[in-house]
């Protein structure tokens, strides 16, 4: 049974949660932030930057060195709620859960409640409906007229809305997408030359992987204190679009060409991860496409490869029109 909350009560509801939780939500500059004032939330648009930094903070300390001793650092265990993630971002958390297994991540994850919101305004880059997404949330808010109808996905979520009244009807809505990627069977097309036309335009800038909510690859590096006695071992993001990603001592890069790197991105999302985990690693949020300076659209390439009818494909192209 869903719960209901009047839209004009939302800010108060969030404010109340603040006494027990840190609240993270989308704000005006296109990213998620810890908010102090709910009126700063911007729920109407998908963020440019995903919320992954709250699970994998850049440069986080994994272990510390004190003289000859190594010490495990204990990650913050603040209780927090991330509000305003859409279906794509919620699914991205599920994918991160399947990849990252260290204590820091697990502890942050355990202390985070996912309070998602139904996506009313997908844009021309969104293709989440093509990615077989699941329901993955503690709470999910469906806006309808002047109310939110709230679906409960877990015990943790249930507690948060215990005081809210039950809904008299159930509101479940389906996200409308303009863009579609119906057939993703590209494994056999790995060597198809069409990928070269994408890769030739690629700048190896890594904007796609930085902004992708499911790109979690990283590097580990040490830092030494100025007195050389203490230090830390840290983790930072790495991008498969850079040569250094696969480079070993002596300088050999196993993915030396932009083509190899570009295909690594697409095939990891669509083929490799699926082989291992039974689902796509891409959640169709479109962030990689929005962020790409030369506007490479690999979903378009997939559609061409899998024989989407020409006139459908044209309609499907990002440049064509808005939803």
């Amino acid at each position, binding site marked *: 049974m869903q719960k209901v909350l009047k839209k004009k009560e939302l800010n108060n509801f969030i404010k109340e949660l603040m006494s027990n939780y840190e609240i993270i939500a989308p704000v005006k500059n296109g990213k998620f932030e810890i908010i102090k004032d709910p009126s700063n939330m911007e729920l109407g648009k998908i963020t440019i930057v995903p919320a992954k930094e709250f699970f994998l903070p850049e440069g986080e300390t994994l272990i510390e060195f004190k003289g000859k001793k190594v010490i495990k650092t204990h990650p913050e265990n603040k209780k927090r709620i991330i509000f305003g993630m859409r279906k794509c971002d919620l699914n991205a958390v599920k994918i991160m859960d399947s990849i990252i297994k260290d204590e820091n991540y697990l502890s942050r994850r355990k202390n985070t409640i996912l309070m998602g919101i139904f996506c009313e305004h997908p844009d021309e880059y969104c293709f989440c409906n093509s990615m077989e997404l699941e329901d993955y949330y503690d709470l999910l808010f469906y806006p309808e007229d002047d109310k939110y109808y709230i679906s409960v996905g877990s015990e943790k979520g249930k507690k948060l809305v215990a005081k809210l009244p039950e809904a008299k009807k159930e509101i479940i809505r389906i996200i409308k997408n303009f863009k579609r990627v119906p057939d993703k069977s590209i494994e056999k097309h790995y060597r198809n030359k069409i990928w070269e036309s994408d890769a030739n335009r690629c700048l190896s800038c890594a904007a796609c992987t930085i902004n992708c909510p499911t790109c979690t690859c990283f590097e580990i590096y*040490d830092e030494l204190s100025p007195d050389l006695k203490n230090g830390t071992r840290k983790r930072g993001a*790495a991008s498969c679009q850079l040569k250094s*990603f696969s480079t070993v*001592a002596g300088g050999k890069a196993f993915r030396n060409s932009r083509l190899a790197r570009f295909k690594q991105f697409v095939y990891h999302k669509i083929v*490799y991860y699926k082989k291992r985990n039974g689902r796509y690693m891409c959640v169709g949020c479109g962030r990689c496409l929005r962020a790409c300076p030369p506007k490479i659209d690999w979903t378009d390439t997939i559609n061409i490869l899998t024989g989407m009818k020409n006139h459908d494909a044209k309609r499907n192209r990002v440049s064509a029109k808005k939803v």
Partner: protein
Amino acid sequence: MMQKETGYLPKRYNIKSVKEMTSDVKLLRVSSKINPLPGQFIEVSIPGIGECPLASCSFNKDYVDILLRNAGNTTSEIFKLKAGDKIYIRGPYGKGFPLETCGKDILLAAGGTGIAPVTSFIEYIEKNRKKFGKITIYFGFRNKDYILLKDKILMWKKKFNIRLTLDQKSPGYLNGFINQLIEKDHPNVENSVAFICGPEIMMKAITKSLNSLGMKNNKIFWSMERRMECGFGNCGRCTIQDVYVCENGPVFRYDFIKPRIENEEHANEVKE
């Protein structure tokens, strides 16, 4: 079944001895009871400097041998350590040589520091000699000064059929690449399984020679190397298409890994 290690906290161990092998390779013996399985690797580090994956070069419950090439930032610092110094290790990680190949004749081939994982397997075989058939071991080094683990090789000569060859001509030694020697020797490979470790170019050439003797790719195993950070399937750095070298390998049956390597190589060959 070993529990899957997913933490980054290394343990501190004592370096028992350090032996210089060549100008840029040393053998470090570390007192440790972690006893990696043959073919597994460990993450070795110096706090504040860095970490790197290194093969276990022994099969012993009281120590781990590391055959270290001075190759970059971290390895050059480890290279400076002496007996009595401390070193930090986490692991072991990865799937080593398939021990279910017991009962077969074994052909081993190693080039350069590729001798490290192969040594862990040889020591396993020494301790379990009855479980294996005929053992033939090929070693290849650049020249006489680059021969690694000479003492061990001399000792193994008494027990196994050892075939050592040098790239450069040198009196008293066979000359040529391992693949050439294998083709010349023409060993009977009917009941054999082969394990190879070395540069990929070398592994490819050896595989081709073994194929020409009638050995199928599903009887040939490669021990592979890729850029690594975590060692246990989290950082994504070591993949070859859908496969994680750290977790699914580093030892792979060649028929399994071949199409993946070839696809990525094909993508690398494009003109830019």
